[in-house]
Each structure stands twice: as C-alpha cells, then as structure tokens.
C-alpha cells in the first residue's frame, strides 16, 4: 500500500493539481450573522479551489465530497462518471432566493460610454441579438461555443472521453441567457452585494454609497439596444479613431460573443450590426471589424483572460474599454473605484452542486441530511468552492445556513 501512496503523491505533484488539504479546521464563518441558527448540527468544510477546472479531479481522488462550480465543470463531473448533480443553483434554498441569480454581466468604462454612446449601444444591440440567437438555436450555438472553447475536440476526464459539443449542449440549458436587468435580477444582485459586505470582501465605494444602484448600474445601453433590436434598424455612427479592446473569459457564459463573431454574416444581414473577424480562418479570432450597415466603425480586439479580476485590472488601466465578466469581479472593481458601470446581464444561473457518485443525494434536502449524518459520524463533508466571495461560495453559505448547517473554511 505504501509505495502506491508514494507513487500517487508524486503523481499529483507531476500533474500540477493544486492540492488543498483538510487539516485544522478553524474560523467558523457564516454569510450574515443575523440569521445564523443555533441549531447547527455540525460543520461542512469548504475548500477554496484555485479555479474550477481541477474540481472533478479533486472529487475523483476523494479529496473533497463535492464541489460547487459553474459550467461546463458541473456537466464534466457528471460525464466523467465521478459525480452527480445534487442541485442546480436556481433550486438552492432559501426557496426562490436564487431563481434568477446573476452570473455574468457586461461592463463599460464610463469615460468610453460618454465619448462613444452610439458605439456602445450598437455593440449592446449585437449582444442582445446574439443572446436571442442562442435561445432560438441552442444546438447550433453549442457547436459554435464548443469550437471556440475546445476546437470541438473531446474532453478527457479520467478514463472517459466526452465530446465538447455534447458537454456544451448539456450545459447550455442550465444557463439562462438574458440581457434583461429585471427586478428579480436586481434584487438577487443586491442580496449578493449584501452578502459580500457580510463576508467583508467589499468595503469601499459600493458599501459606503447611499445609492448603490447608481454606483453599480447604468442600463442606458440596454434600453437603447432593445430599441434598436425592436426597430430592426440602426443609424450608422461616426467611425472611432482608436481600437477598442473588449475582454472576455473562455467560458460557456460568454457564448453571446462567440456566436456574434462566428455567425457575423447572419447578424450583419438581419440587424445591420456585426463583428466580422479580420482573419476568417481563425478558430478564436482576436481582431474583428465592428460593422454597422456594412460600414466599418471600429477595430475591436477581443482579449481573453482566465480570471475576471485580470479583466477588471485591465479595465482599470484603460487597457480594456468594455468587458464580459462575472458579477463578483465587476462589483469588487466598482467598489475599489474602477470607473466602470454594469450595463446589463449577460447570463444568469448556470451553477451547480456536484457530489460524489453514489452519494445518497437527489436534491438539497437529501444533501443537507447527508451533511448532518456525516457530521454526526465525525466525518464532516468537504465541499470545494471557487474563491471566497464568488457567487457559488455565497450561495452555498446561504443554503447551508438556511438548513441550519454550520460551515468552516478549511485552512490549508
């Protein structure tokens, strides 16, 4: 047995898996202390993982009992045969709280918007059109997204090989693609901001403002874009002198951009607005011409990153003028004084709690029961979550608290 263990340990080091181990649980914490119940039956440990990619590996190697993440890592756990979905984020308690929870947003630098309102509005109209297209043509969109993210190749998880098209196809229906800053979206986002204040991850402009909505949002681009789409006609704005840099993440959530670029001909013909790649042969175009009524308005650089905070740092130094980004980095950036504004959502939902295959879990109730049972047995569950203050981390804390289960952060 011993040599096996040594070999396995060596292999983990080889494979660059970041191992977060579970000794010395300290510092109990709860999302907002006011509603913490004394009936807490026992702790669930949460492990902060560096990114969500390795989460199925952590589960497969028994280092965690489950994880909460965004897509396509939720489906990856299922398809690689190591896990099963306990609950998708919309069904996490308290009931109805997260039925429309924010996930990703589109942010614009304020100075850029005031100087180029027409460009931002037209670009936003393209986002709205692409979002609609994803909802109308999910199959075709899945193909485009899988091509952008993985060249339509297979994902290999352990012994299982899954087509990336299948994975994206399964993931898309769990995400709500919408650009509407609805009341329920705003209320959910506001709860999330409150939770971040409770955790202590934001304590600047957003926290101290008496009018948080004014600090966070400017929905004008959305309203103008909706009007353009409704009219199906757009006036050609004056061309921009400078190149525009637009940030995004290599994530299913930002499908609207991928679809807009890859299907540029359709949007050009239907709406008169398009992002036409300069090199049509590229799998992931990095430069595109922004066309309105067939006329080039600006050169747009598409800048991918592997984490939202990177994008927000670039926005702060005006290296990006607009970006697709997750809602937590956007809120933190605004809180720290980055001169950006949230213009509208890009997508909602799309997260899920995955537990080890064969666990006695079908839904949240049975998960809570399992957590209590394991805690009573002296073997508390360990769940991996993306960084503290992520929407997934906050939802898990809320849900556990709501079920009267304490959570401790596993210190590594």
């Amino acid at each position, binding site marked *: 047995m011993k040599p096996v263990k040594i*070999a*396995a340990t060596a292999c983990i080091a080889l494979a660059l898996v970041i191992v977060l181990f579970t000794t010395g649980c300290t510092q109990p914490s709860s999302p907002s202390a006011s509603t913490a119940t004394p009936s807490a039956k026992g702790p669930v440990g949460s492990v902060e993982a560096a990114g969500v*990619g*390795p989460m199925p590996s952590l589960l497969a*190697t028994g280092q965690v009992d489950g994880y909460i993440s965004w897509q396509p*890592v939720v489906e990856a756990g299922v398809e690689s045969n190591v896990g099963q979905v306990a609950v998708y984020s919309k069904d996490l308690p308290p009931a109805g709280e997260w039925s429309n929870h924010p996930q990703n947003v589109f942010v614009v630098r304020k100075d850029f918007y005031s100087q180029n309102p027409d460009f931002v509005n037209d670009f936003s109209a393209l986002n709205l059109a692409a979002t609609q297209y994803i909802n109308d043509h999910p199959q075709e969109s899945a193909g485009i997204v899988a091509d952008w993210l993985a*060249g339509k190749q297979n*994902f*290999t998880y352990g012994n299982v090989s899954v087509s990336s098209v299948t994975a994206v196809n399964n993931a898309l229906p769990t995400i709500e693609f919408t650009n509407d800053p609805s009341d329920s979206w705003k209320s959910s986002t506001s709860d999330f901001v409150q939770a971040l204040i409770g955790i202590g991850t934001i304590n600047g402009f957003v926290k101290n403002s008496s009018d948080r909505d004014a600090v966070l949002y400017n929905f004008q681009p959305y309203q103008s874009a909706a009007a353009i789409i409704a009219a199906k006609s757009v006036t050609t704005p004056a061309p921009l002198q400078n190149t525009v840099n637009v940030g995004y993440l290599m994530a299913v959530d930002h499908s609207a951009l991928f679809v807009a670029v890859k299907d540029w001909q359709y949007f050009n013909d239907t709406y008169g607005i398009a992002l036409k790649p300069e090199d049509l042969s590229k799998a992931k175009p990095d430069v595109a011409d922004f066309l309105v009524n067939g006329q080039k308005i600006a050169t747009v650089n598409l800048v991918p990153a592997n984490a939202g905070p990177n994008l927000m740092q*670039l926005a702060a130094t005006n290296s990006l003028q607009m970006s697709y980004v997750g809602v937590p980095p956007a809120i933190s950036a605004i809180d720290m004084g980055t001169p950006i504004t949230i213009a509208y959502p890009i997508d909602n939902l799309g997260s899920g709690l995955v537990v080890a295959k064969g666990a006695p879990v079908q839904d949240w109730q049975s998960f809570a029961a399992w957590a209590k049972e394991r805690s009573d047995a002296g073997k508390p569950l360990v769940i991996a979550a993306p960084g503290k203050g992520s929407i997934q981390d906050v939802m898990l804390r809320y849900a556990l608290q709501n079920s009267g289960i304490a959570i401790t952060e596993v210190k590594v």
Partner: protein
Amino acid sequence: MTRRLGLVLPILLIIGWEVAAIIVNNPFFLPKLETVIPVLISPFSDILGTGSLVQNALVSIERVVLGFALAAAVAIPLGIGMGRFAVLNDFFDTTIELLRPVPPLAWVPLALAWFKIGIVSIVFIIFIGAVFPILLNTVDGVRGVKNTWIEVSTTLGAKERQILTKVVLPGAAPTIWTGLRVGFGISWMCVVAAEILPGPTSGLGYLIMYAYNLGQINVIIAGIIVIGLIGLVIDQGFRAVEKRWFGWRGLER
C-alpha cells in the same frame, strides 16, 4: 557512453510511471501513457482549439528568445561594468540584490498594468527571470579574470578599451556563457508564468494553464514533457558551445 547512461533514468521513470498508473488505477491521479502519447505523437494536430503542439512551442520559443536576448543585452554590459569598476558595483549592487529575490510571477499584475496586453508584458516577465543569473555570472567572470593577465597587458601598454576587449571579455567568457545557460533555463521556466497573462491565445504555458482550467490532465502532461524536451535540447546546444570554445578553462585550472 555517459549520454547513454543519462537515458537510463528517464526510461526507468517512464516505465515506473506506467506501472504506477496501472497500480493506482485512477487516471485523475495519474493518467496512463496511452492517454498522453496520442497528444505527443501528433504534434501537428490541433489541441483544444489552441493550435498544435508545434505551433504553441514555436510561439513560446519566440517569446523566450526575445526576453532572453533583451536580458543578455542589458545584463552583460552592466555586469562587465560592475565587475571592472568598483564604483559601478557599489552603485547598483544593493538595488540588484533587492530585486533579485522577487519571483517573476509576482511581477505579473504590475507587468499587465505597465505594459498592457501583449508581447511586451510577456517579454518583461521572461526578462526578469533571465537577467539576474546572467548579470551575476558576468560580474563573477569579470572579477575572476587573473590580475596577472591584466597587469601584463597594462605593462605592455594596453589601453582600457583593449584590456576590456582583448583580456577581460575573453577571460570572462566561459563564466558569462554559464550565466547565459542558466538564464535561458530560467526564462524557459518563466514562460508558463508569462503566458498566464490575459491576451495570449497560444504558447505552451498558455496551453498548460488552459488545459488546467478545463481539467485536461493528459494535455498538461504532454505540455510539461514538451517544455522539458525543448529545454534539454537547448541546454545541450549551450553545452556543446561550451565544450568547443571554452574547453581551455579546464586546462587553465
């Protein structure tokens, strides 16, 4: 013969890996060779939409060479100055020792803010990794030039410029070369750190991090192997030059 002996351990490691993979029987811990080999033996086919192994390797090599060349261009003249003139050494030494321990990864956020998205910030990270070993070895090499050689040339009427080009530089060359060899190794190591930066859509470092985000362990291992192999080949090149041109150093001792 020595080269053949050097192959024994890698071969044993590969066999050990496969045996361990079979015993462990959990591909998440350790994927079997069979899942990695297909990636390696088709170096011209696309991987996860990032381009082929060869394309990614070429992109990384270009970045490393740029950063490394820049580091050499800065470090060698500065090192010669510092080694030859005490006042220059006193002026720069504290600052260099202050900056030297900072890992290249720590510069990533600042590099982004200063040099924006693109090749410049990537080259900067690689430059930071390579510049110090080259600099320190150059200073060392220049100081290590025998005083008697310099004295003899002074006696024979050599000017400072002649001493530098005809005595100091050739005398220090073997040590400077060692610095370049170490520096290149480190710049190659830095390519992963540099390619984490937003913007790149290719490169071996990018490929590894991208595969990490998607949990594709076989691609990660293939990337590691290719980085190692290229590093090995380049190091052999450095050694060959060392043997050919600087063999005299062994005799001198």
